[in-house]
Every structure is written in structure tokens, then in C-alpha cells.
């Protein structure tokens, strides 16, 4: 079957298997910032924004996303100019192996859209679906706080 998807701003038509997961379609199409860690919705490495909301793409049938808008971690930066969340992850040392990072960043973007000024508890709650085995999460929490600060500042300037 065929679906139409907008991926990181580019609309395209894709031939898919009815049983194919969105994760597999995205990776097949070269969007390798979408990682696979469990295939069962437990780890969050495959998180993407689907019509603006963070979801685990391993749990979603591609067939159900006809007409949807998908943003992956590759779609956040503008050339060399990084998204504030990406900048904050780098500055706070929140990246170790980097395998959970794209999903964690996507979930952060979603969290800060819904809640631009989260408390630490809200950050922990909001990112609890993204597992990381390297960092102990300490620097990731700080990165989210830093990104929130920066993005709030940006709003004030608007």
C-alpha cells in the first residue's frame, strides 16, 4: 500500500507493507536518527514527533500515519544551527554514547512545548520513557532546565 508522509518538512509518497512499523519505514528511508533499542515501546530511542507529539515509532503502524507530519532529531537543526535543546545537551555534557540522545531530545522538545517551565519532577516524569544507560540522567535533567531557560528567553524577545 501507499501512504503520503511529510518527514522533516519534505512530503513524499511511500510504498509500505501493511504490517510495517513507522520506525522501520523511517530507517529504511535513511532517517537513521531514529534508533531501535527494544522494538516494544520500553526504551524511547525511536521517539519522533508525530503531528507535533512525541511517540515511540516502533509501536506505530506506518499505515496509520497516512497524511501525518513527522519530525525526527535530524529535522530539528537548521544546517549548522542547532535547536536550543541540542545545544543544551552538548553544553551540559548530557550526551555519552548518543544512542538514546535523539529520542531524548525529541521528548524534551515535546515536553517544553507542552510545559515551557517544567519543575525537576515534571522533567523526570516527562522523560521517564526514555532510557539511558550511560549518563545517570543527572546532566540530561540539567540540559532540559538549560534549554527551558534559553527558550523562555527567546519567547520574551518575540
Amino acid at each position, binding site marked *: 500500500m501507499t501512504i503520503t508522509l511529510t518527514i522533516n518538512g519534505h512530503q513524499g509518497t511511500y510504498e509500505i507493507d501493511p504490517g510495517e512499523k513507522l520506525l522501520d519505514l523511517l*530507517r*529504511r528511508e*535513511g*532517517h*537513521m*536518527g*531514529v*534508533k*531501535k*533499542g*527494544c*522494538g*516494544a515501546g*520500553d*526504551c524511547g*530511542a525511536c521517539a519522533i514527533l508525530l503531528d507535533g507529539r512525541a511517540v515511540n515509532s516502533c509501536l506505530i503502524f506506518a499505515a496509520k500515519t497516512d497524511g501525518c507530519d513527522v519530525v*525526527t*532529531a*535530524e529535522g*530539528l*537543526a537548521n544546517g549548522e544551527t*542547532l535547536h536550543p535543546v*541540542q545545544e543544551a*545537551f*552538548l*553544553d*551540559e*555534557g548530557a*550526551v*555519552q*554514547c*548518543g*544512542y*538514546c*540522545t*535523539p529520542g531524548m*531530545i525529541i521528548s524534551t522538545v515535546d515536553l517544553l512545548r507542552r510545559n515551557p517551565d517544567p519543575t525537576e519532577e515534571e*522533567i*523526570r*516524569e516527562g*522523560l*521517564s*520513557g*526514555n*532510557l*539511558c*544507560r*550511560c*549518563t*545517570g*540522567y*543527572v*546532566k*540530561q*535533567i540539567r540540559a532540559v532546565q538549560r534549554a527551558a531557560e534559553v527558550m523562555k528567553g527567546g519567547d520574551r524577545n518575540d
Partner: protein
Amino acid sequence: MTERTRDFVTVGKSCRKVDGFALVTGKPEFVADLNLPETLHVRILGSPHAHARITSIDTAEAEAMDGVACVLTHENTPGTRHTTAGQGYPEPSPYDTRMFEDKVRFIGDRVAAVAADTPEIEEAALAAIRVEYEPLPAVLSIDEARADGAPIIHDEPDSTGIYDTTRNIVADVDIDIGDVSEGFDASDVVVETTCETQYAQHTPIETHVVLSYLDSAGRLVLRTSTQVPFHVRRIVAQTLGLPMHRIHVIKPRIGGGFGTKQEILLEDIAGLVSLRTGRPALVWLSRKEEFVASRTRHPMRVRVKLGAMNDGRLHAIEMEATSNTGAYGSHGLTVLANTGSKTLPLYNKAPNAHFYGQAVYTNLPVGGAYRGYGATQGYFPLETAMDELAEQLGMDPVELRQRNHIRVGETSPIFQKLGEGREGVSQTIKSCELPRCIEIGAERIGWARKRGKKLRVGEWVHGLGMSVMMQGSGIPEIDMGAATIKMNEDGSFNLLIGATDLGTGSDTILAQIAAEVLGVPVTKMLVVSSDTDITPFDVGAYASSTTYVSGMAVQRAAEAVRDQIFTVAAPMLDASADDLVLQEESVVAPSGKRVSLTQVCQRAMYESDQFQIGATASCVPTESPPPFLANFAEVAVNVETGKVRVVRYVAAIDCGVAINPQLAEGQMEGAIVNGIGYALTEEMILSSKGRVRNPSLFDYKIPSMLDVPPLDVILVESYEPTGPMGAKSVGEIGINGPIPTLANAIYDAVGVRLKRTPFTPERVLAAMREAGRVA
């Protein structure tokens, strides 16, 4: 020690990771991120039996299926005995493994592999393989392994390096210092404690994965998620009977390792599929396969007996360890030996010490290297027994440690007696800020104020615990790292290192070391690492070796390049090479006259006495300076449910000079949180037949962001004179802390000693009931 780091320009700064931009933007940097045309999907058929002989295997139907490219079994693959453990050569682990075999030894053991055009065909082909098994009696615990009449797991005649095949003993260690029985007799107080640790897994978020293909010359390329690319090349050559020069191993970015990727688990299969079919082959373990058939931390039972005088001086220490290596002996001997060698030297004042133990085979999941590497299992009973001893002596546990731990200028006979599966290497401690670590940690947690108070808030009772520990920095006289640096005419440098960055940030800190010596910003250091065709040799990332061992190789290579730069610059500056210094991308003479690195390299390349400025240097360390760690924790124990909540965790670490403080903290934070999971929630649950019953990240509970307590990591810098820029390595040590620290804190709160991990609510409640502490 800020006065020392202040002398550095690049070292001691938390610069961004050199690979950071690619990682936050989701660039295709990982093994499976290449979509090569015609790639075959490979899946492994695992054994349904814990112990069985394969009496027949029929692959005809599978092979006849459309889209199946090849099927591998013991009938059509090389039978060379080898070890999957990527360690220094000759390996201390036994050669007890074949690629495939007519005998299976645990549930999930390799039976066959199928390579097919799509995952769907692959599944169908796996189901079409007909295997007849003759089930054998299985060994399902360490107690059964050595029992009279126990089934022999490795009864094959061609395995080598096994201590006692007939009794399922893979390794045996026994070292003595002084006489412990006399030592205990002469002690005023003796305590004895036995602790057991569970099956636990590394769970890197990226599971094991390898992509193999043939290059234009027909050589085998293995793009693999490994900690040990050079060991991969050697072991795959050995296993497949291929000349080593026909193999090219590339480690791209990898999604964590923690020891499990110190194993050669899939590269042989992928490689053979590519060689047989000429096509790329992708072997990528599912999360379930990772749990069932990769590697685990060796579960252990460890007994510690301490004898001390009334003033708290330790007089005798005995440690007996029994390790379960599972179906194969991977890292069996060395993890066992490290259980003693990385723990007992900490308390070097005791004139009598005895470490002995055995690693035994069972028909259960296979042990392997896991961050901490035996020390984690050893510190649990050692630091529990120290707490018990302090209580018996009526002494503050902090004071008991202070009275007994090793200090600068001291040694321990254990260093020499017990090494990496053989005799060790003698060393004297040259840096140790453990006294300050203890002081800072105790202050930060409020030790004097809060301990022993049993503060109760509703159902929660609070308690404090502490522990101290050491690890090492690499394996002396065995490990080797090497680095090549070459200069480019714009004043940048290529840094080629065999060292393996598995997410730790070693590419970055090694670039910082080179940049420091050569007076350039990190951005002028172009790093290529872990490619067996391009980079010089390195044993890889394990045993807390990279900063100390590979870092020293980088420093030496950079110094050699610096000397060449001075030789070229001297006539340009009318100065003697000995008087020059490097500063801000220039060579500066005492007169103040300077030439830029660009001018120097252009002269060397285009103008006069032309040559390539560049050097290669190696490091084989002669000692292994330990990092030291003081752990303090406050817990709250729910007396109704038995649940343990970590209120706060403080870790003060002597890491030498921190090359990149943020990355050093990251190593500690990650290791501690992994250790908290190991202490409280993580456990592979095995059925009575030996099957892993919780092979998913849903049922095997690693910490999420919600589970992490407030965590204070304090870098207490020392200066290690043998290390690069004064550094030591801190990759592993943090993971050893939580189990004994939390156990001691639980005791402080509710008066029960937990001797079996993880400390689940059920176990805590059962211990409280047994002690009559709850109704």
C-alpha cells in the same frame, strides 16, 4: 588541586565532545545506520534446552526457500576452539567455544544461523530447520556444579585452559599472605559474612550488532559495535581460519558497552555469511536475544572474614569467592581474580590475608566482562563486613576505614601476588586523596548529624550508610595503547588512536591531551579512532584503561611531534630547539619572536629539508594506579512494604587530574546509577529449567529518570605522577558503590543486613520479619 589544573590550557576544561554534533543531530554514525544494497538479514536459532546433544539437524527445507542465501550449522562451519572474550593475547579465558557445535549448553545457545533477503523470510526459514535433541541432565546452580556425579558440561576433548573439566571448574585461584588462621586466633574481634549477587545484564540501549561486507579487494570488512576492534580482528581470523590481513574491523559510534561488547559474539557469523555469499550481512540482536544469549555479570557467592584488634587495626582478611560463569568460561578466571585483587589491597595494613575461590560452569546464561569486573561482587561482602566489624568494635564505620585504608607511599603484597589471571605487578601508591574524599562525603551527607537517628516519617525510616573502594587504571604489563599524530599544513593534526570510544568520551579527552601538548585548540585535533586498517593498535576499552594507558600513548606521540616542530622552527627563529615553547598555535622563542604552526608545517612540507611531521608512540603501563572512592547514602525504608528509597547519594572520587571534568562526572554518575539498579531492581529471573523469564526492558527494571535520587559526584583531584597530565581512569569504580553503601544504610535504618541482591521490597520485608522487626 585547582593550582595544578590552572597550569593547563585545554586539559581540565569541559569542552564539548568531538563527536557531539553528529550525535545530537542524529547523523548515521552507528553500525546499523548504513543501508547497503543487497544486505542479508541474519538471525540465530537458539537452543530450547539448557543441556543437550544435537543428534540431527536438517536444513534442507530452509535452504530451499526463496530468498534464503545460506544456513550455517555445526556441519558446515569451522570447528576451531576459541574464546569469545576479547582480552590480551594469549587469552586467560579457556578455549571452550566453537562457532557452532553438536552440543548446546544453555537455553539460547547457538544452534544455527539463517541469512535471508528479509526478516520475514528469515523467520520462516528458522522455523523450517528441523533439529533433534537428546536432552542431558543440566547443572542449574553453583552448588550442583561441583557435586559428585554432576553432569560434565565441557566433556569435549579439544577444549583447553579449563582448570578441572570433570568437576565443572573453569578456574581456581588461591593466594596467601602471612597466615590467616593464626591471624584470626590473635585477633580481638572476628566477623564473617557471606553475600550473594544475582544475574544482571549490561543493557546498552544499542544491542550487539555487526554489519559485514566485502570491500573492492575482496577483504572482509566488519563494521561492529565492539569495545575491542583489534581483538575482534584476531579472534575472527582464528575462528574462521582467515589470514588476519584479510580482515578490516571498523568501530563507528556505538551505543554503549559496559563490558558486554568486549565479547566477539556475532562477528564470526556475519563474516562467514559475507564470505560465503559475497553480500553484506547484518546481525542485530533483538532485545530478547540480548537478554537470553549475550553476556551477564557473573553471579557470585562471596564470604569475607575479618579479624581486628580492639583499636580497629585489621589483622587478618579472608575472602572466598565462588563465581558462576555459566555455559562458557568467558572472563571466568580474570573476573574471579579481580574479586580479590581490586578489593583486598585497599586494606593493606592486615599482615595476614587469604583469597581463594573457583569459577564454575553451569547450564545457565554466560558470564562476561561487566564494568567493575568482580570488584563489584567483592566489595559487597567486604564493605558489609567492615560495617559489622565497626559495630562490634563500637567504632564509627568512617573511622574504621580511615584507620585501615592504603595511603600514598604504601603498597600491598596483593598487587604482586594476584594479577590478571596470573601473578600481578608490584606497585607503590603515588596518589591517594581518599582521606579527603571521606571527609568531604561525610560532611556533604551529614554523617555526624543523621546517622543512627532512625528518623521516622510516616511509614518511612531513614538511615545512612557508607563504603570506600579502589579499582585500577588498566592492566599493568599487559595492556597496550598506541597513537599516531601527523601534522597538516594549516596547523591542524590528525590524531589516530586504536582506543575505543564507546560513549565514554575518550576520543575527546585523548584529543584534549594531544591539544594540550601541541598548544592548539581541540578543534584542530582531528580524531580517527578504532579502525584496524588506519589506527595503531590498542587493546580496547576495558579495565579502566583508556585515559591512563591510551592517554599516555597520546601524550608521548604529541611530545615527539612537538620535538619535530621545534627542530623545524629553531632555524626560523634563530633559537635553539631546547628553548622553544608552543603557545596558541605558534612556536615562541625566548626573544618573544614567534612563527605559526602553519608556517612551520609549510616549511617542512614545501620549503626546506622536507618531511612529514608526525610520530607514533605506545604505552604499556608498569603499574595500575587506583582511583579511590568514598560513597555515602541516605535511604528511607518503608517498614510496611519493604521498599527502599534512596534519598541522596554522595560520591567523592579521587580521579587524579580530571582531563574533562564533565566527562569524568558523567562516568561516575552513569556507573552509580547502574549500580543503584543492580542494588535495588535489576535481576534476570531464571525458571527452574534455566530459562530467562524477564527478557525485556519492561520486565528487567533498569533505572529511568524517575528512579534516580539526588546524586552528588565530587571530583577530588590528586596528581598521579605516572598518568598522562596527572590523570587516572574512572570508568568502572562507581558501579561498585551502591550495593554495600545502600545495604549499610538499610541496616542503619531498620537493623537488618541484606546479603542477597537486589534489595527488593520482598527481600527487605522478609529480612525484617526474620529479625522480628515487623509483625
